[in-house]
C-alpha cells in the first residue's frame, strides 16, 4: 500500500471521527437551545440531565468496566491476538469478586486487607486465569481466536450462574452488604459539575490512571514497541531475537488483568452479582471492543468512546426516572446498542494490526 493511500485512509478515518465529534456537539447544542427556549419541554429535562453532576458521576462509574476491558482489548489485539472474550472475562471477574467477598465474610480483614479488596483481587485473578487459558488455546494450540473467544464468553456465561446456583440456590448472588464505596478528595470535590471527578469510587481513579499509563506503555516503552511489532510484523520481531509467543502471552494476560479490574469494580460497586439472562455485564465487553475500534487502538480514544457509551447509558437511566414520558424503558435501553452499531458502521474500516488473528510459527516449536 503506498503512502498516499495510507494518508488517504487516515484522512477518511479522521473525517469519520470529526463528523461524529461535530455531530455530538450539534446534538448537544440542539438540546441546549431548545431546552433554554422552552423550559417546560422534554429538551429542558434532557439539558438538565446532561449538565447535572450526578449524570457525570454515574457516567464515570459506568465507564469503568468498558474502559478497562477496552484497554485490555487494545493490548491483546495490538499483540496480534483478537480477544473477543472480554465479555467473559468481565463476567467471571465480577462473579468471583462477589463470591470471594461473601465467603470470607464482608466484615473480615485479612493481613490488613478488608474482604472486599481481597474479593477485588480474586476477581482479577480469575480473569487472569481465564485469559491464560485463552492465550494457551490460541497461541500454543493455534485455535481460531474468534471461536476461542466466543468459548471464553460462553463458558463464563454458563459458569457464573451455575456456581451462583450451587452456592445460593439462584443465579443471582446475595448482596454482600458492602461496596467499594467512594473516595472523596476534600476541596476539589466541591467544584460544581467537575467535582464528580474527585468524589468517586476507587475504580474511577484507577481508570483515570490506567488510561494515560496504558498509552505511555504502548507508545513510549520497549515493551509497547514489542507488543505493536508482534501484531504488525511478528517476523521482524522474531528476527531481532524477541520471542513473539511470549509477547503475545503478555498482551493477552494484560487484557485479562485489566478486564478483571473492570469486572470486579462492576460487581463490587453494587455489592452483588446478577446472573439473569446475559448477566449484569450485559454486553459491556462487546461494547468495549467497539470502543477501542472507535478509538483506533489508542487508549485515550478508547476511553473517550467508552465514556461516550457510558454517558448514553447514564442519560438513559436518568431519563427513566423523569416522569411523564411514554417512552418505555426497554426501548431507551437499546440506545447504547444502536449507537454501537451506527458507530461500527461508520468506523468499520479501521485498520487492524496486520498480523492480528494469525498464528505465528517460529518454525522451532513444531515438536
Amino acid at each position, binding site marked *: 500500500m503506498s503512502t498516499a493511500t495510507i494518508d488517504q485512509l487516515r484522512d477518511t478515518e479522521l473525517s469519520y471521527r470529526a463528523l461524529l465529534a461535530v455531530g455530538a456537539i450539534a446534538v448537544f447544542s440542539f438540546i441546549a437551545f431548545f431546552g433554554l427556549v422552552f423550559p417546560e419541554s422534554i429538551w429542558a429535562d434532557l439539558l438538565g440531565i446532561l449538565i447535572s453532576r450526578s449524570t457525570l458521576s454515574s457516567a464515570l462509574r459506568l465507564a469503568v468496566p468498558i474502559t478497562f476491558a477496552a484497554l485490555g482489548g487494545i493490548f491483546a489485539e495490538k499483540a496480534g491476538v*483478537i480477544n*473477543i472474550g472480554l465479555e467473559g472475562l468481565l463476567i467471571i471477574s465480577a462473579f468471583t469478586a462477589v463470591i470471594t467477598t461473601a465467603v470470607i465474610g464482608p466484615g473480615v480483614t485479612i493481613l490488613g486487607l478488608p474482604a472486599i479488596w481481597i474479593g477485588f483481587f480474586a476477581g482479577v485473578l480469575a480473569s487472569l486465569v481465564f485469559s491464560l487459558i485463552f492465550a494457551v*488455546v490460541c497461541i500454543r*494450540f*493455534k*485455535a*481460531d*481466536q*474468534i*471461536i*476461542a473467544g*466466543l*468459548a*471464553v*464468553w*460462553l*463458558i*463464563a*456465561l*454458563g*459458569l457464573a*450462574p*451455575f*456456581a451462583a*446456583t*450451587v*452456592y445460593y440456590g439462584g*443465579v443471582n448472588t446475595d448482596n454482600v452488604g458492602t461496596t467499594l464505596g467512594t473516595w472523596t478528595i476534600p476541596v476539589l470535590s466541591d467544584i460544581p459539575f467537575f467535582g464528580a471527578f474527585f468524589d468517586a469510587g476507587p475504580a474511577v481513579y484507577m481508570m483515570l490512571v490506567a488510561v494515560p499509563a496504558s498509552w505511555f506503555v504502548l507508545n513510549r516503552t520497549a515493551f509497547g514497541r514489542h507488543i505493536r511489532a508482534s501484531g504488525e510484523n511478528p517476523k521482524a520481531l522474531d528476527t531481532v531475537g524477541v520471542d513473539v509467543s511470549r509477547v503475545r502471552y503478555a498482551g493477552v494476560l494484560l487484557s485479562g488483568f485489566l478486564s478483571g479490574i473492570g469486572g470486579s469494580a462492576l460487581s463490587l460497586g453494587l455489592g452483588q452479582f446478577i446472573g439473569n*439472562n*446475559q448477566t449484569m455485564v*450485559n*454486553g459491556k465487553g*462487546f461494547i468495549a*471492543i*467497539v470502543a477501542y*475500534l472507535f478509538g483506533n487502538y489508542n487508549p485515550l480514544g478508547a476511553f473517550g468512546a467508552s465514556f461516550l457509551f457510558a454517558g448514553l447509558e447514564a442519560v438513559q437511566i436518568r431519563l427513566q426516572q423523569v416522569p411523564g414520558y411514554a417512552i*418505555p424503558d*426497554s*426501548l431507551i*435501553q*437499546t440506545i447504547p*446498542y*444502536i449507537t*454501537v*452499531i451506527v458507530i*461500527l*458502521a*461508520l468506523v*468499520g*474500516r479501521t485498520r*487492524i494490526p*496486520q*498480523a*492480528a*488473528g*494469525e498464528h505465528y510459527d517460529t518454525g522451532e516449536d*513444531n*515438536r
Partner: protein
Amino acid sequence: MSAADGAKSVLRRLVNASTVERILISFAALFMAVVVGAVIVLVSGRVATCQTAATTLFGLGFCYDPVEVYLVLFNGALGGPFLLDSPGLFNPNWNPLNFGFALTLKETTLLIFTGLSVAVAFRAGLFNIGTQGQLILGALATALFAFFVAPFLPSGVLGGLILIPLSIFVGAFVGGVYGAIPGALKAYADANEVITTIMLNFIAAQVAFVLVSEFFRNPDSQVVETTPLPDWGTLLPVAFPKGGDFSLLALAFGLGLVVAVWYLLEQTSFGYDLRTSGEQPEAAEYGGVDAKRTTVTSMFLSGALGGIGGAIWVLMVMGKWQAGVPSLGFDGITVTILAGNNPFGIVPAALLFGTLKSGSLAVQFGTGVPKQLVGVLRGLIILFVAMPEFFRMIGSSISLETDDDAVATDGGRSLLGGDDE
C-alpha cells in the same frame, strides 16, 4: 491480512480437514468437555451443602457424584429406560413414547433449525452470532401473525393447514430481514458481523419485549406474553405425551430442511458461490461472484432459518410468544461447530445437545446439580472443538515415541508431525 481473512482461513482449514478427522475431533472435544464438566461438578459438590455425601474421594466427601450426574442425565433424557438404583436392570414400564424422550426430541428439533442457521452463515465465512435475535423476532412475528389471522380462517385441520405454513413463512421472513441487516452492514460498511449481531441480539430482546408489553400483551396474564393461539393453529404432539411439547411433524420438517440446505449448499450454483466466498473470497471475486450480494443473501438465509426456529418454538412449544426466550440461538453455535458446519452432521449434534438439555432437568431434579451445567458444557465443547491442534499434538506425541526411535536409528527423517497446513 485482515481479521476477517484470518478467520476465513481458519474456517477454510476446518472445512478442509477430512471428514473422519473432524468427526474424531468432535468426539474428542465432547469427551474432554464431559471430563472437565465432571471436574467442575465434583468441585462444586465441595461447595454445595448437603445432608450426606454423594461420593467420597481421597477421604473427602462430595455432594455430587459426576458419574451419577451423567448417568441420570442420559437416563432422564431417554425417559428412564434403566433403573439406576438396582444395577443393570431395565425398567419394565419404559415406553419409548415418554415425556423425557419427548423433551429431548423437542430440544433436538429446535436445535436443528438454529444449528442450520448458524451453519449456513459459517459456510459463507460469516460468524452469525445473531441467530438468537433473529429467532426472537421470527417467533414474535409468527405469534402475532397467527393470532391476527386465525379469526378469519375456518377452525380445525383445514385452518391449521393454511395457518401454520403461512405463519412459519412470516417468521422466516422477519428473521431473514433481521439477519440481512448485519449482512448489509458487513457488505457495505465493513462492520464486523460478530459485534453487530451480538448488539442486534440485545436490541431484538428489548424491542420484542416492548412490543408485547405495550401493544400485544395478553390482558389475562401476569407475565409479558401474547394471547395463546387456538389449538388447531399449533403443532400438536402426535404420538408423544402432550406435556412434552414435541411434534413429529416439526421434526420431519427440520429433517427436510437439513436435506434442502445440503442440496442448496452442495448442488446449486448459489451454494457454490456461498461456499467459495466463505472459503476463498479472492477466488470467488475473481470468478465473478458478487461478494457483497452473497453476504447479504447468506445472512438473510441464515436469519430465515433462525426465524423458522422461532416459529416452531411458538407453534410447537409455547402456543404464544413469551418474554425470556430460551438461548436456542447460542446453543445453535455449539451444534454447528460440533457438526463441523455439515448439514447432516447437525442432526446427531442436535440430538446430542438436545439430550444434554433435556437430561439436565432430570439432573437438577435427581441430583441437585443446577441445570445451568449445560451452559458450561456448551462453552467447553466450543473451546475444545476450536483447538484441533491440541488433539493432533496429543495424537502425534503418542505416535512420536516410536518415530523418535526411527530418527535415532536411520537419522534420515526428521520433523515428523506437527505440520498443520
